[in-house]
């Protein structure tokens, strides 16, 4: 099962490699990993999307907690949560397809943020599956490049992951 693990970690050199190293050393799967400082610049928030059986996920969270730099973590899959991913897509356009691509982007609530005579760059956020669906809907031979941020998320309600 897919899990989103949100981690508060000391914003120190090497903290990212400790997490990445743990996953590779123990053979855990990483689907995506994002990291950036929080409003408190001494802390980073990391989001790891991973998958595995319950026992594997239990070990992953325990091993992450054991890292000295990790302050706190939660497995978002255990609670109601919202998650988003940012994607930028560069697509080929021609006179014939330009309108169609724009309509499709509108349906998916994407924004066109760069236009040339032969291309668009579309910005889109949503769940990972929504982004997948958009890429699929565009069809083959249209996409020039794709960059995705990996998922980030937080639990719903007033409680949060903080010190």
């Amino acid at each position: 099962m897919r899990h989103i693990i949100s981690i508060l970690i000391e914003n120190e050199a090497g903290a990212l490699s400790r997490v990445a190293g743990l996953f590779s050393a123990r053979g855990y799967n990483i689907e995506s990993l994002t990291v950036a400082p929080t409003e408190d610049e001494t802390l980073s928030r990391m989001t790891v999307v991973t998958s595995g059986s319950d026992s594997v996920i239990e070990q992953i969270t325990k091993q992450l907690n054991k890292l000295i730099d990790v302050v706190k973590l939660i497995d978002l899959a255990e609670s109601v949560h919202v998650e988003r991913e940012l994607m930028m897509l560069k697509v080929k356009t021609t006179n014939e397809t330009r309108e169609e691509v724009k309509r499709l982007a509108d349906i998916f609530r994407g924004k066109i943020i760069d236009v040339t005579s032969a291309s668009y760059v579309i910005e889109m956020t949503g769940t990972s599956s929504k982004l997948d669906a958009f890429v699929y809907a565009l069809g083959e031979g249209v996409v020039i490049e794709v960059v995705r941020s990996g998922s980030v998320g937080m639990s719903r309600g007033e409680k949060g992951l903080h010190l």
Partner: protein
Amino acid sequence: MELSGGEIVVQSLIDEDVEFLFGYPGGAVLHLYDAIFHQEEVKHILVRHEQAAVHAADAYARSTGKPGVVLVTSGPGATNAVTGIATAHLDSIPMVIISGQVGTPVIGSDAFQEVDMVGITRPCVKHNFLVKDIADLAITMKKAFYVATTGRPGPVVVDVPKDITDPAIKIPYEYPREITMRSYNPVIKVHSGQIKKAVDLVLAAKRPMIYAGGGVILGEGSAELIEFSKLLGFPVTNTLMGLGGYPATDEQFVGMLGMHGTYEANMAMHESDVIIAVGARFDDRVTGKLTEFCPYAKIIHIDIDPSSISKTVKVDVPIVGQVKDVLNEMMALIRMSESKVDEKALEAWWNQVKKWRAVNCLEYDRNSAIIKPQQVIEALYQVTNGDAYVTSDVGQHQMFAAQFYHFDKPRRWINSGGLGTMGFGLPAAIGVKLAHPDADVACVTGEASIQMCIQELATATQYRTPVKIINLNNRYMGMVRQWQEFSYESRYSESYMDTIPDFVKLAEAYGHVGMLIDKPEDVKPALEEAFAMKDKLVFMDFITDRTENVFPMIEAGKSHHDMKLRVAPGTPINRELA
């Protein structure tokens, strides 16, 4: 007081009451070594190879409970230390390793003797630090000792670039008395609900087993384990790392378990209905085939490290906490409880265990014309009155020592259990002897292992550490040969060395005493003679039976009740010959 970075490191060691610093100098740590020169509180032990520095400090830690401290230079000094660090990591030994690093301006430029020590050691330390600012030095040293010695202990590396230790730059020094880290909180309050569940299980048990590991020793919980076991009357087995945590000569002790554990310990584990795992981690050498591990048992697991729990074996009642705290709480509840141990069931269980014990699985041919390795360890046990510190290397001799030297006290058995590092024994013996100068220290080794750190015979000369080296010389890498005999149709691929040095002359070359013993009747007198030489390192080269194997053995992929025995149960060894 204003100190340079080099002086800060050394002064922090003094403030941590560090007795010995094991190390080897080099370019990146010259400022540090100059600071060492100017003080007398911390005694530096100069080894002959950095790996040995780490092993010696590690064994110092294992035998005293205090952290072992190491100083090595950058690059090769640091990489040489890595085997030792990984050894300490797998056995959860508290250590602080200070490594020199090239100056901060040239880090990352492939400078002379530069290696990314923090990167290399990341997977084999509890934590590591690179100090980039002299202002962080004292606090980092404090954090290193704090992290290394609390919770589940482990090695911590502090990588110190050369410019940070520059004698020309001084800052005010104050060593922090206490420290808190928001991301690290090793103090764990025991969950009372789990204690209750565990006690209910324990008191309902019909075929209970106490399976105790190295955590009992690391957590100073030996007295509590004994009290707990005596209160309940259950059989107790120890892991390789746990030996000495429960007295081996006690009648409730059924021996070590696992791959080379006793028949009674492994059979009892297999048939048990309630297992109380105390500071043990269900290592693969203990469990054998996981799907057939203890098929009838409910398992209670007491461990300081939550990640140890249900890592390989799913347990029924996990209890996170210090072994001694948990056992104390369990005992309090057991004493208050209205239900009692089922004495009748326990008696029947003991009768069964005694039947297994009667198989006498460790018996060997006592009538051999060639020295049997077991005989040497038994004689060592007698000559040292069972009270020596015994270090070992890795292989058959290690298992014979574990099986035949009956450790009654914790911290007496010093071996590389997790990583299985050949070369550990001799530097370890030196570290132990420095810590316990009046105690008998024996290094049980083999002719292959001893050669991996043989250069430390010089360190032993320099610091006058008169340890006794018990070299079980079977002219083979015995354990490799044993596996090749069983699993590779006796194709002894590269498990034999064509050239083995004359160990007697070698010992003498270093200023020690060498003895060659090749007759069974000479074993005990030779040991008596050697241990009577209190101020001499004696290298005892025992020429042993090269075909001897370690039994019982659970071969890889097999389970506890599927042991290979020297003699099938029910066929006693011919006593008339013995």
